[in-house]
C-alpha cells in the first residue's frame, strides 16, 4: 500500500475538510461522508468561526474522533448531534435549534417576505382602482 498508489477518492458532494488527517478517516466512504456532513454542522468551540473539520485545534480533533466513534457504534446522525449538544451546549450547533427562543430567527425572514408580497398586492390593488 505505501509504495504503491495511495488513493482515497471520496464521493463528490462530500464536504471539505482542511484539518483532517488521513489516520482519522473512516475507510468506508459512505460513513466518512456522514461524518463530514455531521462535522459541517458542528462548530469548533475555541475558534472564531470554523467547523470542527476545518480547525487544527485539539478540541476539534477530539470532536471529530467522537463523531466517528459514534458513527462506527451505529448511532444515527440525529442521535450523534444530540449527544454532542448534550455535552457542549447549543453553542456547538451551527444550525440553531427550532426552539421558541429561535422562532424569529427561523421564521422572521419568511414572515418579512410575506409582508413584502402583501404590500405589493395592496399597491397593485390601489393603483388599479
Amino acid at each position: 500500500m505505501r509504495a504503491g498508489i495511495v488513493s482515497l477518492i471520496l464521493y463528490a458532494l462530500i464536504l471539505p475538510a482542511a484539518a483532517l488527517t488521513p489516520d482519522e478517516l473512516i475507510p468506508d466512504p459512505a460513513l466518512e461522508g456522514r461524518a463530514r456532513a455531521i462535522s459541517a454542522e458542528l462548530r469548533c468551540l475555541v475558534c472564531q468561526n470554523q467547523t470542527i473539520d476545518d480547525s487544527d485545534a485539539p478540541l476539534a480533533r477530539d470532536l471529530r474522533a467522537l463523531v466517528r466513534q459514534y458513527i462506527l457504534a451505529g448511532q444515527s446522525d440525529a442521535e450523534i448531534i444530540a449527544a454532542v449538544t448534550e455535552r457542549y451546549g447549543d453553542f456547538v450547533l451551527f444550525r440553531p435549534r427550532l426552539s421558541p427562543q429561535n422562532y424569529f430567527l427561523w421564521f422572521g425572514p419568511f414572515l418579512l417576505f410575506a409582508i413584502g408580497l402583501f404590500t405589493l398586492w395592496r399597491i397593485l390593488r390601489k393603483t388599479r382602482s
Partner: protein
Amino acid sequence: MSAELGHFAVILTLLVAAVQACIGFAGAGRGRDAWMLVAPRAAVLQLGLLFVAGAALIRGFVTSDFSLNVVAANSHIDKPLLYKIAGSWGNHEGSMLMWAFILALYGALFAVLSGRLPLIFRARVLATQALVSLGFLGFILFTSNPFARSFPAPFEGRGLNPILQDPALAAHPPLLYAGYVGYSLCFSFAIAAMLDRQISTDWAAWVRRWALLAWMFLTAGIALGSFWAYYELGWGGFWFWDPVENASFMPWLAGTAFLHSIKVTARQGHFMRWTVLLAILTFALSLIGTFLVRSGVLTSVHAFANDPARGVYILAIIAATIGGALALYSRATFANEIEKSFQLLSREAALLLNNIFLATATATVFIGTLYPLAIDALGLGKISVGPPYFAAVFLPLCIPFFVILPFGPVLAWGRASWLQIRRALAAPLVAALLAALAFMSVRAELSLSVLAALFGAMWLIMSSVATLLAALDIRRAGLWGRLGLVPPSVVAGNLAHAGIGLMLLGIIGATAWRSETVVAVAPGDRIQLGGYQFVFEAVSQVKGPNYVAERARIVMRDLDGRTKTLTPEKRIYSAERSQTTEAAIDVKLSRHIYAVLGEQLEDGRRVIRIWEHPLVAFIWLGALVMVLAGGFGLRGGRR
C-alpha cells in the same frame, strides 16, 4: 514629529468639518450664497488635511517608528515594504483613519464635480457629509488615535498577522471602505432631498451614479476578500457566512435594491419615499458593518462590555445618524411624487418584487448575524448561526428570485404583454434548459437540486445575453454600429445579471462537483484524484523576506500526459510566531487543482491534501463582469 503633524491635521479636519456642517446648513436655511459656498471649499480642505494625516501614518509605518503604538503593535522591521504600507490600514486605528480619508475623498469629489447642481442642494449634501465626518473624526481622536505614542519606544514591533500579509488583503480594505463610505453620499442626497421636499430627475441621475460607484467598489472588495479566503485559508472555501463577511454583504444587498428602486424613481417619479428609505438603510448597514467589525462585539459580547468605549461611541454615531435620518423621514413628503398605475406584469412591479426579495435577503443576513449577539446580550445563552442556517433560509429565497429575475428587463413600463415576454424569453428558456442538460450529461450525475441550480445559472446568462442582443438589434446593423446607440444602463443591467449567472455557475461547480483526497505520503508516492496523477517528490526549506517555508514539490500529470509542478508551502513567520499555509493552485477556466502541504506525521510521512474545484474561477469572473457592468452604467445617466 510627522506623527504629531498627522495628529494635528486630524484635529484641524474636525474643526473644518464642524464649520462645513454649521455654515452649510445655516447658509442653506437662510439662503446666503456666500455661506453655502464655504461648504465645497471646506470639503476639499478636509481631503487635503486628511491626506497629510494619512501620509504621516504611512511614514510612521515605512520608517518603523515603533514609538507609535499602532506601528509597534502591527509592524516589524523585516516586513516587506508593501505590507508596511498596507499595515497602516490593517489595524483598527489606521483603518478608521482610512474610513475618514475616503469619506473626505467622496466629499471633495462631489464638491468639485457638482458645480451644475443648485448651490443650496450642494450645501446640504456637503453639510450632511460633514456631520458624518465629524462623528468619525471624533471617534478617531477620542477612542482610536493612530498617532498615540509610548515612551520608551519598544525596540521591535510585534508584526502583522501573517495571513494578512498578502497582496489581495492589502487592497481589500480600501476597496471595501470605498464601497461602504460611497453610500454616505446616497445618504446625504437623501437628507438633502427630504429637506428640499422634492426629488428632481437630476437628483435621481446623480445619486444613481454615486450609488453605482460605491456598489462597484463594494462588489470588487467582497469578491477580493472571498478570493483571498479561497487561496489563503487552506481548502478553497470562498464564502463562510462569517459575521465579518455578512457585515459587508448587507450593504451590498441593500445597495443593489437601491440601484433598482432608483430606476423607477428616475424614470417614473414614484417610489420616492421607498428609494429615500433605502438610501438611508444602505448607509446605516454600512455603519452597522463598521460597528460589528470594529467594536469587538463579534468576538464576544463580553469583550465588548469590558472595553465598551469604542463600541458605545460607534453605536452613538449609528443611533444619531439613523435616528436623525428616520425622524426626518417620518415627516418627509415629496411635492412631485407621482402615483401612476401599473399592473403586475410591468417593469415597475418587477422592480418592486426585486426590492422585496433583496430586502428580505438583507433582513435574513441581518437576523442571522445579530441573533446570537441579541440572545447573548439578553442572557438567554450562547448560540451559533452558521452556514447550515443560511443554506436553509437564504438559498430558498434565491431560487424564486433567480427564476423571475430575467423577466424584469424585458417588461415594459406600466403594462407589459405576454406576447412580448414570449418573444423575448422563449429562446433563452429553451437554450438554458438544453445547456443545463448538456452540463449534466458531461458530469453524468443525477441530482435534481444541482440540475435546477444549473438551469438557474444558464437562465440568467442566456436571458441576459438575449435581451442584450435584442437591444443591440445586430441583425440590422453590426454589433459595433449599434453599441453606441443602446442606452448604457441596458448594457449595464444585462451584463450584471449575466455576471450573477456566471457566479452561480462557479458556486455550483465548486460546491457540488468538488472532489478531494487527503493522504499521507513519502517521497516518490503517487496520489490519484479524478483524471489526475500526482507524484510527491520532496519537501525543501526556503527562506522568504520575513519567514521560512517548507516547500513541497508535487508533479501533476493529467490524462493527456501533460505535467506541471505544484509547490504548496507552509510558512513560519518568526516575528509573529505563527504559520500560514500557501496553497499551490493550477488555474484553468474549467477547474482549479488546489494542493496543500499538511503536517508531518510521526513516521516521517507528510499529509497532502488535494482538491479539484471545477468552474470555481467563474465566481470571481462573475464578480468582475458585474464590476465592468457597473462601469458601463456610470456612463449612462438619463436617456
